[in-house]
């Protein structure tokens, strides 16, 4: 990859929780990191090292305490909650460890949800909105692509863990984001299911050029990424390119 404008560019990013309180704690101690469009990166590190915190900061779910953050060439460091929400909606997708689907909605509705959220909103940072029919088509295409063409109308509770995670992947991709953040997406799945989920992420990365940043504890899966960033105690301990044997 290289060259071009980085999709994510962090400089000296710090995150402090409970600032000003007796239990104040700095979790990220100055992170410098950039990610190029289309990169397939693993984020590894011991428990409590700050992986989820870093992911949440990149995902604009929370704001950094210090340092700067450029997303797609735009400085988003000082963004307020609404601006962060709009930017998140336009550029980013999320996959969490525990699927985090909405139990009251069907698989298809869960996938459509990000589109529905943006439907009646002013243009904002999102830019143009897309028509509802287009949204449904994109959602069904994605559910078909993750192998759930028969599960459109199933509620999450009726699906296995692996199937739920496939729905979550489809939902993360429905707005055609530039970067998908996945926090232990295979964390509570068995090996075979993990492998298939991982293969799916890889496929979308290759097909759509979507960049992925995947937190994982599984060294086997990390070795299948193009780049491995290791976080220890809130600092980047290593950052190396990884040559993947084509599978």
């Amino acid at each position: 990859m290289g060259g071009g404008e980085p999709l994510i560019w962090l400089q000296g990013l710090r995150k402090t929780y409970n600032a000003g309180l007796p239990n104040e704690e700095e979790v990220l101690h100055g992170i410098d990191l950039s990610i190029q469009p289309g990169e397939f990166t693993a984020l590894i590190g011991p428990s409590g090292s700050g992986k989820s915190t870093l992911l949440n900061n990149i995902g604009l779910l929370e704001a950094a305490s210090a340092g700067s953050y450029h997303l797609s060439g735009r400085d988003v460091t000082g963004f307020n909650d609404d601006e962060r929400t709009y930017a998140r909606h336009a550029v980013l997708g999320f996959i969490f460890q525990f699927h985090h689907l909405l139990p009251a909605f069907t698989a298809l509705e869960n996938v459509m949800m990000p589109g529905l959220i943006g439907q009646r909103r002013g243009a904002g940072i999102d830019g143009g909105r897309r028509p509802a029919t287009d949204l449904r088509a994109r959602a069904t295409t994605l559910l078909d692509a993750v192998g759930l063409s028969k599960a459109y109308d199933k509620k999450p509770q009726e699906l296995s863990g692996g199937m739920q995670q496939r729905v979550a992947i489809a939902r993360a991709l429905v707005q055609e984001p530039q970067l998908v953040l996945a926090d232990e997406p295979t964390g509570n799945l068995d090996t075979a299911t993990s492998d298939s989920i991982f293969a799916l992420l890889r496929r979308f990365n290759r097909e759509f050029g979507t960049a992925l940043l995947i937190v994982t504890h599984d060294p086997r899966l990390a070795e299948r990424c193009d780049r491995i960033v290791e976080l220890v105690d809130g600092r980047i301990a290593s950052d190396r390119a990884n040559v993947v044997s084509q599978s």
Partner: protein
Amino acid sequence: MTALGFELTVALRFLREGRMQTALTVGGAGIGVAVIFFITAVLAGVQADLISRVTGAQPHIVVKPPEETVAPLIAGGVGLPRIFSLQARPQRLTTIDGWQSLLQTVEQTPGVRAVAPVASGSALGIKGDASRSVLLLGTELERYLRVVRLDDKISAGVLQLGPGDALIGIELAKDLGAVLGDRFRVQSAQGVSEVFRIRALLDLGSRELNRRYVYTDLRSAQSLLGIPGRVTNLDVSVLEMMKAEEVADRLRTQSGQLIEDWIQTNTFIFSAINNQNIMTTLIKVFISIVVVLGIASVLVVSVVQKRKEIGILRAVGATRQQMLRVFLWQGIMVGVAGALLGSVLGYLLIVVFSHVLRDAEGQALFSLVYDVQLIGIVVLAAAALGLLSAALPARNAARLDPAQAIRG
């Protein structure tokens, strides 16, 4: 799913998901609304009954010539409501100058429903050997019926007041030994007399009135009382009874005549009704507060239960404002559903109790007037209360930190 938009879709789905919780809050709100409906209907019925009983054949407002100073007499014992003057009037009746134009002025005064010219004075009713002192009241029937409802006071006969026709109280008929269709003679203090045919027997709501009232056409009364072309008073009805005092004040400043309103002459009943209204308003306010607290507490719990879902929605791009509206909608929908349920329950309560609650004469105490406009108002009010209930929970939902919510 896409037609309703994000907020309404999610709000509906959250409510549906919380089945039991939703059913209980809607039920609670519904019972509150039903009770409010019921109290309103019963009270309106009871008060209308009370007022018509006490003021029955009395106009809301009487316009009299200014010189007249006949004090109203207290009919019955202590604590009983006052009735308009029934006392024998002085020989020379005072009359209203230029009553035709005054009638028009009064008619056009805001709050006035109808006006009727009246020539009244005391006289004797005579049939055979029997003679009784009566109050002769001559008027134009068509106008008078819009001031005082005589149509629901007919005991026998039909309302008809051509020359030579009379409508009299049922007790008076008994005292004179007369029946419907009989003729009897009226002799005035001025010595004039005329024969009338009894066209209807009236039950005017009190024995005193039933023994004394004789209605005739205006012209006959005028000639009997020796005041041709003149009237002794104008009888007025207002649009809102409880506001008769305001209208009376308006007439007072406008006409320069002596104005008596029913509230003046029935202070006791007016204040009783007023106090009743204050009490029931208080009760309604408290019921509303309980309903608001009920909806609010369930929604507060719901926000806590839905913490993770709120976090997910925020993560996939919902703004704080959107989350706020998701919960405001829930409050509105619970309120409206409660109001609709309450309207049905309230209607049933009214149906059931209209058979149980009866007045002294066994008549239903309130009528089954089910006001569609009232339902509209209640539904709107309930939507507003629902919105109010949801304010705090919705704020909690909007303030939730998505990163925290998703972590666990």
